[in-house]
Every structure is written in structure tokens, then in C-alpha cells.
């Protein structure tokens, strides 16, 4: 049994891992730059998927699995997705037992709402603040084990680098914020450090704390990444100072409709083109259709004027307040102008279904890992993936026996990775990446971005590492000469069976290399995309 596990990140995946370990009696450290209340997970809105079948629609975990695979255009590990969806009802029931105030039906069962890419109501929710509600309950649950000494929190600490010894991750080097001490902490490591928002400063719906630097540094230390070209643009976001603000998919799940306005003509383009799921097609499809409408000169609006008073009051009151905070508009009466915005990174650290990385003693879960979502994530699956992924990573890590028996120690030397990319560097690189990795991509656009990134100078190891991971994102998009999920190539608009492979990025000898790896095959999988 593991003696001490270091968890990097105190958001949903990190808390879930900590709780799982503590319940098994295993000690862990919860290391984070800010406290859990500041984690990006509190921003999650719409809900968490589980085939609880409380709405009398005959939903099954098999259908959840199938729709998650199809939503991800068959690029996720089918065995991992099967585990995720099969355990989802237990995950959500456990959260309810911890006290997450989910909306409920009159009979007391959990109420479920419609979400994109799913034919059944499957998304458990607490109005449209589900992430905040789940985080509050998990923070309290973990606190019990902090008091018992099983979970040690190290807030205001940043990850500098992994300590890799003889092919094993023997611990982490962390630094206390505001110029504090640097410490080497021994033990296996679970990474739960979030997506790559820091590569797109001010352009995403996520936390502005994320710099992307630790991920980049770990990449240059030999950690493999996968599917980096798969970046989710959420259809309904608005620009607010310093970032983009999400308007939850729940708005459409509860009846909101998208239309484009051009020369005074209003078109409900999603309903026209996709009569079955309409506005609730998977996010990649909706964002792409919006892009084409906008390219034709249309302005896109989210029309929630048909939503009933009862639904506003019981399920969306917080969403309305949020919109009215930023617009002089009332969504009950006025359509809201929206645009797609970067929201989620399906790609990330390459892990198998047990959440093991390519380095012994190192695991990853949550948005920082590539697992579960393939080429496009369904709404409601991110929090599920974070909680279940954290549990799975903890379960796997708990059985790890260390080969290195180093102890904790203060580090007084100078670490070349103890630095940060400048804001100017990160902004410049973000603009380049946005051009190359937009909703619709072309070879010439990606090639131009690659040339621009390669030409960027760097002033320190953090910038050098970020440059390498940015190149890996672009090479991945360049190499995938097809369209699949969030990766749409206008020069290759079709999906090819030959590309049903994971894009794997590796840094070796100062060079970035991208290859394609086979996915585990399932014989019972009828869909042969």
C-alpha cells in the first residue's frame, strides 16, 4: 500500500482523489496554488451525467456509454468510458449523500435535465451552479480527514517540476507562493491540475490562475500528452472583462434556442439543419454551425424568451442573474448575443484507463488528463470525469509500491524551472495558437501558426517549455488530416477510419514528436467510424 501520495490541484478531481485515499486510510497531501474554493471547478454550471433513469424515459448506462463514445467521435478509450458511465449513478448518488443540493422530483428522486448529444434526460443538477454545490460538499467531506490528519493541505504552493529518478516519479518540487521556501516532497503523484487555459490567456471560460507552465515543464521532462488538437469551443459564451463567461448549456437544455440574424432575417439554424436534437447537438457541431453562420455575416443570439416562469425560478434563477449582471438585458424578454469560446481541453496528459501515465508512480485525472472525452466532450461529462477519474487514479495509486525511498527535504539550490513565462510572451503565443487552432482549421493556417511559434524567442525555461507544448498542439492539428469532433479541417472535411487513433506528443532530446497510437478495440462496438 502507498505510504504518501501527493495530489497536485485541489479542484474536483484532486478532492475526489483525496477523499478516496482518505477513506482507504492512506495519507495524502493536497497541494494547490489557491484554496479549493478558488478552483475552476466552482464555475461548472449545468450538471453531471448519470443514467439514473428517474424521469421515466428508460435510460441505461449502456446508452450513456454509447452517446459519450459517439459524442467523442469514437476517439475515447471505450473501456474507460464504459467504466465511467457504468459507475456514474453511484458517483452521483454518493454526491447526493454528501449533501449536494441537487434539484429533485416530487417523489424525492434526483431530477435530470436534457443536455447536448443525449437523447434522454441524464444530467443531475443544482440549478445552474452544480459545480459550486459539488465542490462545497466535497470540501466539507475532505475537511473531516484533514482534521484526522489523513489529508494535509498545502495551499499557496506551486508545482515547479516532477522529481524523476530512474524512470520513477519519486515526488514533486514545490514552492510556496510569494517567494517562500522550495521543498521536495516524496511519494507517488496524482496530477489534477486542470486544462491548458494558460495557453490562451483571457480567451477561455476557465480560471485566470492557470498558466499552463507546470504542464509544459512536465512535458519537457518526458511526460506524454495526447489529443492536444482537441479543444472544445463552447457555443454560448460572452466576453467579459479579462475572460469569456459561460452561458450554461442548461439554457438550451431547458428550452433556449439559437438563431442567427442577418439583414433583419431570423433563422433558427440548428433546428432547421438538425431536426431531432436541434439546439442540443454536441458542442462541436453547434459551435461549427455558429462559425459558418457568423462567416456568412449573421449575428448569433440565444433566445430564452420561451422558457416558463417556473423553470426560470426553479432551475435557472442564478443564470439569469449572471446574464443581467453583464448585460443590460433580461433573458426572460431579450435574446442574448453569444459567440463560441474556448471552454475545455479534451486532450492532455496521456493516461490509460487506470489513469497511469507513461512514468511509474505518476497518475493524472480531471481536465489535465486526456481520458473519457475523445474528440469532443458532452456537457455534463466533465464533472463526472473529474470525480470518477480522481477516484480511479487514487484507487490505482493506492496500490503503488515505491522503488525510490527518498524523504522530504527543503531544497536550497537554484532550479532552472523556478520561473514563469512573461505575460507578454503568453499573450503573443495565445494569439498565434488561436489563429491556428480555431473552430475551423486549414493546413495553411496551422502551418503559419507553427512558423510563428517556432520563431518566438524565449527568455527562460518556462517559456521554452510552453513553446514546446504549443508546438505539440499545432503538430497534432497539422498531422490529423481529417475532421473529427472539435478538430475540423476545412481542407479535410471528412472523418477517416485510419485516423481513429490517439495523437501522442512526446518531447525527447529537445525535439517535439507527434505520433498516432492505436485505441483499444472493442468487438461489440458496432459503430465503425
Amino acid at each position, binding site marked *: 500500500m502507498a505510504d504518501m501520495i501527493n495530489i497536485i490541484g485541489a479542484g474536483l478531481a484532486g478532492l475526489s482523489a483525496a477523499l478516496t485515499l482518505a477513506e482507504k486510510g492512506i495519507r495524502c497531501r493536497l497541494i494547490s496554488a489557491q484554496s479549493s474554493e*478558488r478552483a*475552476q471547478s466552482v464555475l461548472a454550471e449545468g450538471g453531471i451525467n448519470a443514467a439514473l433513469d428517474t424521469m421515466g424515459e428508460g435510460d441505461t448506462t449502456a446508452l450513456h456509454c454509447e452517446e459519450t463514445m459517439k459524442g467523442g467521435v469514437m476517439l475515447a478509450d471505450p473501456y474507460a468510458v464504459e467504466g465511467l458511465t457504468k459507475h456514474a449513478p453511484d458517483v452521483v448518488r454518493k454526491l447526493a449523500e454528501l*449533501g449536494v*443540493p441537487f434539484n429533485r422530483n416530487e417523489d424525492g428522486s434526483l431530477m435530470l435535465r436534457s443536455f447536448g448529444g443525449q437523447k434522454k434526460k441524464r444530467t443531475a443538477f443544482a440549478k445552474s451552479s452544480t459545480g459550486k454545490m459539488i465542490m*462545497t460538499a466535497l470540501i*466539507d467531506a475532505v475537511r473531516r480527514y484533514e482534521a484526522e490528519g489523513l489529508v494535509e493541505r498545502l495551499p499557496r504552493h506551486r508545482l515547479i517540476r516532477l522529481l524523476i529518478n530512474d524512470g520513477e516519479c519519486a515526488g514533486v518540487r514545490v514552492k510556496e507562493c510569494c517567494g517562500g521556501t522550495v521543498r521536495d516532497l516524496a511519494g507517488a503523484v496524482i496530477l489534477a491540475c486542470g486544462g491548458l487555459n494558460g495557453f490562451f490567456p483571457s480567451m477561455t471560460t476557465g480560471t485566470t490562475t492557470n498558466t499552463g507552465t507546470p504542464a509544459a515543464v512536465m512535458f519537457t521532462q518526458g511526460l506524454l500528452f495526447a489529443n492536444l488538437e482537441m479543444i472544445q469551443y463552447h457555443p454560448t459564451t460572452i466576453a467579459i472583462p479579462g*475572460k469569456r463567461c459561460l452561458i450554461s448549456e442548461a439554457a438550451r437544455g431547458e428550452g433556449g434556442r439559437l438563431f442567427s440574424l442577418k439583414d433583419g432575417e431570423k433563422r433558427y439554424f440548428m433546428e432547421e439543419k438538425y431536426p431531432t436534437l436541434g439546439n442540443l447537438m454536441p458542442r462541436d457541431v453547434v459551435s461549427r454551425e455558429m462559425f459558418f453562420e457568423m462567416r456568412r455575416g449573421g449575428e448569433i443570439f440565444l433566445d430564452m424568451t420561451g422558457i416558463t416562469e417556473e423553470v426560470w425560478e426553479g432551475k435557472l434563477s442564478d443564470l439569469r442573474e449572471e446574464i443581467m449582471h453583464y448585460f443590460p438585458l433580461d433573458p426572460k424578454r431579450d435574446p442574448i448575443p453569444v459567440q463560441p469560446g474556448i471552454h475545455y481541453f479534451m486532450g492532455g496528459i496521456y493516461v490509460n484507463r487506470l489513469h497511469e501515465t507513461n512514468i511509474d508512480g505518476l497518475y493524472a485525472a480531471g481536465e489535465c488528463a486526456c481520458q473519457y472525452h475523445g474528440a469532443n466532450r458532452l456537457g455534463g461529462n466533465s464533472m463526472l470525469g473529474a470525480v470518477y477519474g480522481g477516484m480511479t487514479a487514487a484507487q490505482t495509486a493506492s496500490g503503488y509500491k515505491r522503488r525510490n525511498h527518498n524523504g522530504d527535504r527543503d531544497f536550497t539550490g537554484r532550479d532552472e524551472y523556478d520561473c514563469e513565462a512573461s505575460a507578454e510572451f503568453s499573450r503573443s503565443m495565445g494569439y498565434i495558437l488561436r489563429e491556428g487552432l480555431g473552430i475551423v482549421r486549414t493546413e495553411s493556417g496551422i502551418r503559419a501558426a507553427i512558423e510563428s511559434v517556432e520563431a518566438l524567442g524565449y527568455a527562460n525555461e518556462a517559456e521554452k517549455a510552453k513553446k514546446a507544448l504549443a508546438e505539440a498542439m499545432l503538430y497534432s492539428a497539422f498531422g490529423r488530416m481529417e475532421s473529427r469532433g472539435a478538430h475540423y479541417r476545412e481542407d479535410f472535411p471528412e472523418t477517416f477510419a485510419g485516423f481513429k487513433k490517439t495523437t501522442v506528443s512526446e518531447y525527447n532530446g529537445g525535439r517535439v514528436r507527434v505520433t498516432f497510437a492505436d485505441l483499444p478495440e472493442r468487438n461489440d462496438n458496432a459503430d465503425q467510424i
Partner: protein
Amino acid sequence: MLIRFEIIRRKSPADKPYTVSVEYETDGEETVAGALTELNVSAFADDPIEWESSCRQKKCGACAMLINGRPGLACDAWLKDLPEGTVRLEPLKKFPVIRDLTVDRSVMLDNLKQLGAWLRDSAVPDTTGVAYDASRCLQCGCCLEVCPNFYAGGEFFGTAVLAPASRLIAEAPDTDGKRLYGAYSEHFYRGCGKSLACRDICPAGIDMERLLVNSNAAAVWKRKFRRGKK
């Protein structure tokens, strides 16, 4: 509009605070958080102001500070809404300063630990909406800043524990109830002077009075206002 920011800085807890001033041209359509971000890559590029920030949409509580003497979130303070002229930014005063506008708010988490703010057994679903409202607490500390009864290290833990405790009390099974009621009475009910300053300052707009009524009823008067129950 032209704003003169006066920012109280401090290099470390051991150093003395000092004030820096800088002029900032803006159309007003941004927040204090946006201005601090820009100032850190322009006027203060060589020595950035240390301040906490994360969500930028008043959902995480990181950027709480004193803005013209009033505690609030920097991401919720629009420049166009502030009086023209000088805007003074200071760290919250009831918490130890780490550097510049960053303070150590761990006393809130320590207090919650001391209170025993968790459930041991399965929650009882709350049908009143209290658990939902209480769960929205950001742990930003603004309520403690204005509270006449709270000081760090005291036995009265303030509204920053009222909200989490109210969530737990609203959902507590009988096996957890007794423990939570006792801790609540000791660390909140007895020390609260009912100034309700916290109600007006909460950036999340949590209805503190409602939490107070519900938790007092359950913990002190042993009655729960649950729909269908007395």
C-alpha cells in the same frame, strides 16, 4: 475617465506598508481586477502587485480586498461605478498580509475544522433551499471584515462559518445534528451581536438572515423549518 489608483503595498509581513500611486486611463467598462492585470504588465511590470484572482466572475472569492475602504471583489467592482478621482486598494485588514494585496485567510478554514464542519453520515435532502443558498458561500472573508464581533483567534467564528454550518445543519441526519448544533451554538450563536453587517456586504448576496433564522431554530431552539415537518 482618468483614475488615480492608490495601492497599499507590503513586501512581506515583516516589512512596513507603503503606498504607490499610478494614473490609469479607462473607458470605465472594466473592473478593478482588469485594471490590476493591465497595471501589472505596464506600470508595475518590473515589480507586479501581488493579488489573488481566479474566476473573474464573482464565483470564487479570490480577489476580495478593500476598495475605497469597503470590502468587495475586485472582479465585481466596475470602474464606471466608482467615484471619479482616486481609488484606494488595500488588503483586507482582519487577516495577516502575505504580500501587497494578498492576505492569509486560512483562519476561516482552521475555524471550520475546529467547528467540525462535515457530515459523518448521509445527508438528509433539504427541501427549503437553505442548503443551496448556504453552499454558495465563497469563503472570501468580506463578511468577517465588517463584523464588529469577529477577530482572528477568537472563539466567535463569524459568518464565514455560519454559511457552511447552515448548509450542514439543514442537511444533518440526527447522528450529526447534536455535534453540529453544539459547535454552532458555541462558535456562532453566542458571539453574534446580530449587527447583520454581513448581510449587506456578501458579494454572493447570500440571505444571511435566513440562514441565521434556520440554524438558530435547529441548533438553539431544536426546531427545524422543514416543509411538511414541525
